[in-house]
């Protein structure tokens, strides 16, 4: 009975909880509410994913108005997987958040912080499950507007300016997206994604359709921070409160990537996006440029959070590279990396948040002696860091393996070589951090800080363990990703 409403409940529950938290205004209540909602969401997302694997597509007409006139929520393996990622990260963050937020957010702002966090959660899940183009825009703005505030609440004043920059760029991105949707609506008279996919071939080749495609793609690329549209990302991640950084880094860009996949392959179809236009060449060129730019920039950062933010620009490059290759193996690699990068970055930013709990900002100079003061945190950073590099036995290796396989299938050995070369760059920036933790002499010997509290350490280490577990037992992410890739490629034919 309730299982048929799962798809709407995953959106409605955090939305209502957010309102409740904003009205009650008690920090502790806010945290309990966030925890309860996040755990419920985790269970619901797992059920939803299981259900989509059996039923392939679940469609839910809002208010029982039949699509395409009514708004439809539509979930298949791909977006159920994205919801699962958000819910997994969300559950870990909810446990982690209590102490971190107590340390980083002023008491009078705490309940608003949780209310906005839940609102952002709602927006991201909403973007993932909805099957209506304009609905995506509304959820996108819900998620974005709340994330601007979540960033601005960082303690450094630079968080304010970072949030402002993100607001300008994010709004331009969302407006581009809605302009694109406008063109598609003018040409087809529908906003339902599945209906759009059916009606677009009839008007294919007309200029407004291509204009729409261009606006939607550029708008989404601003949101997902594809090089060179990534300028908002490093400062926003570096100066936001730890919990915001973990959540946004692990989920927000991933949802934008999901939308890109959905529009490129399902709505427009690979033939329009890839054969009529020079999409693959553009994607691959920008992705490779982003991978190298992000990795090199990460090497020269003193702020560890900022270094990992640049590494996000590079890692997003790997995902879009898989999209650009656009074969089944390539897309599997892209979708797997979407999940894997979410886990890895969540693990790393969680561990950095633990350091921030003691030290405030996480600068390179804070790291020496960490191995003695916080041995578990230090080990966690090493393992998640090696996963970022792509060492066998970790999730990072799995995604790179698929990307290299996909480039070799095309006979593009140069691309495979570039992927390997870029891994060396990521080894350099991760090695700088690991070296500072283990090899550099400690400057001040006062014993001021030990491991973070268990409520922060446990979820971080679970994420680290996931980096290893899914690196060895790859069945779950890879099989779902393969189904999603097949669905994406099959949709346009």
């Amino acid at each position, binding site marked *: 009975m309730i299982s048929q409403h799962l798809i709407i409940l995953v959106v409605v529950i955090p939305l209502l909880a957010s309102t409740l938290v904003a009205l009650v205004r008690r920090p502790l209540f806010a945290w309990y509410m966030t925890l309860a909602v996040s755990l419920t969401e985790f269970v619901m997302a797992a059920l939803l994913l299981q259900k989509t694997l059996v039923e392939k597509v679940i469609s839910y007409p809002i208010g029982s108005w039949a699509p395409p006139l009514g708004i439809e929520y539509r979930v298949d393996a791909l977006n159920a997987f994205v919801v699962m990622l958000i819910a997994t990260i969300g559950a870990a963050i909810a446990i982690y958040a209590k102490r971190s937020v107590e340390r980083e957010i002023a008491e009078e702002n705490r309940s608003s912080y949780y209310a906005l966090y839940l609102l952002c959660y709602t927006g991201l899940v909403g973007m993932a499950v909805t099957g209506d183009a304009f609905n995506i825009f509304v959820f996108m*703005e819900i998620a974005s507007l709340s994330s*601007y*505030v979540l960033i601005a609440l960082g303690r450094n004043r630079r968080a*304010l*300016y970072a949030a*402002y920059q993100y*607001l300008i760029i994010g709004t331009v991105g969302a407006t581009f997206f809605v*302009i694109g949707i406008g063109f598609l609506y*003018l040409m087809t008279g529908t906003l339902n994604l599945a209906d759009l996919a059916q009606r677009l071939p009839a008007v294919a080749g007309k200029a407004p359709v291509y204009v729409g495609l261009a606006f939607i793609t550029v708008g989404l690329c601003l949101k997902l921070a594809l090089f060179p549209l990534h300028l908002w990302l490093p400062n926003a991640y570096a100066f936001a409160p730890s919990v915001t950084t973990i959540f946004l880094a692990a989920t927000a860009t991933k949802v934008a990537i999901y939308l890109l996949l959905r529009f490129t392959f399902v709505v427009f179809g690979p033939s329009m996006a890839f054969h009529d236009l020079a999409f693959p060449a553009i994607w691959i060129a920008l992705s490779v440029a982003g991978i190298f730019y992000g990795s090199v920039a990460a090497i020269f950062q003193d702020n560890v959070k900022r270094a990992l933010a640049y590494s996000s620009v590079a890692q997003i490059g790997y995902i879009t590279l898989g999209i650009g290759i656009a074969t089944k193996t390539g897309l599997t690699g892209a979708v797997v990396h979407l999940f894997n990068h979410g886990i890895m970055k969540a693990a790393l930013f969680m561990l950095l948040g633990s350091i921030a709990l003691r030290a405030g900002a996480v600068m390179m100079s804070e790291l020496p002696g960490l191995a003695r003061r916080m041995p578990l945190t230090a080990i966690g950073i090493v393992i998640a860091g090696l996963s970022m590099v792509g060492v066998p036995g970790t999730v990072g290796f799995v995604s790179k393996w698929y990307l290299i396989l996909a480039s070799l299938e095309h006979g593009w050995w140069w691309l495979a070589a570039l992927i390997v070369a870029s891994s060396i760059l990521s080894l350099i920036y991760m090695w700088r951090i690991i070296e500072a933790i283990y090899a550099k002499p400690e400057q001040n010997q006062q014993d001021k800080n030990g491991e973070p509290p268990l409520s922060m350490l446990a979820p971080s280490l679970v994420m680290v363990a996931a980096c290893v577990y899914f690196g060895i037992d790859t069945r779950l992410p890879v099989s779902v990703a393969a189904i999603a890739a097949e669905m994406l490629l099959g949709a346009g034919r």
Partner: protein
Amino acid sequence: MHTLAAQFSNWGTVVLMMIGLYVVVARGNLIKKLVGLSIFQTSVYLLYIGPGKVLGGTAAIISPNFTVYSNPLPHVLILTAIVVGVATLALGLALVIRINAAYGSIEEDEIIEQERDE
């Protein structure tokens, strides 16, 4: 001239869109940037609503006296978009107030200069 007149709403859209985007990119004053952003968003309202009007059509309330109706859906969509626009502008201005309190300036170059010194 004929096409210019027939397409006046589209021309309005394009002109507003370009003015808005230009102001966002070219102005260093944080409030002027927000004004530009607002103009840019406003152009989208026109993009949706203009083509929704059917010449000679009336409001979409079914009546035996009329046969031609305008499309009401864009109005509903844009009502939502307007709310989003207002929220964005309000949040942006609130951030500018906080930035002014923290940096003592709302000029982009002065803020960047202060950040470089840190």
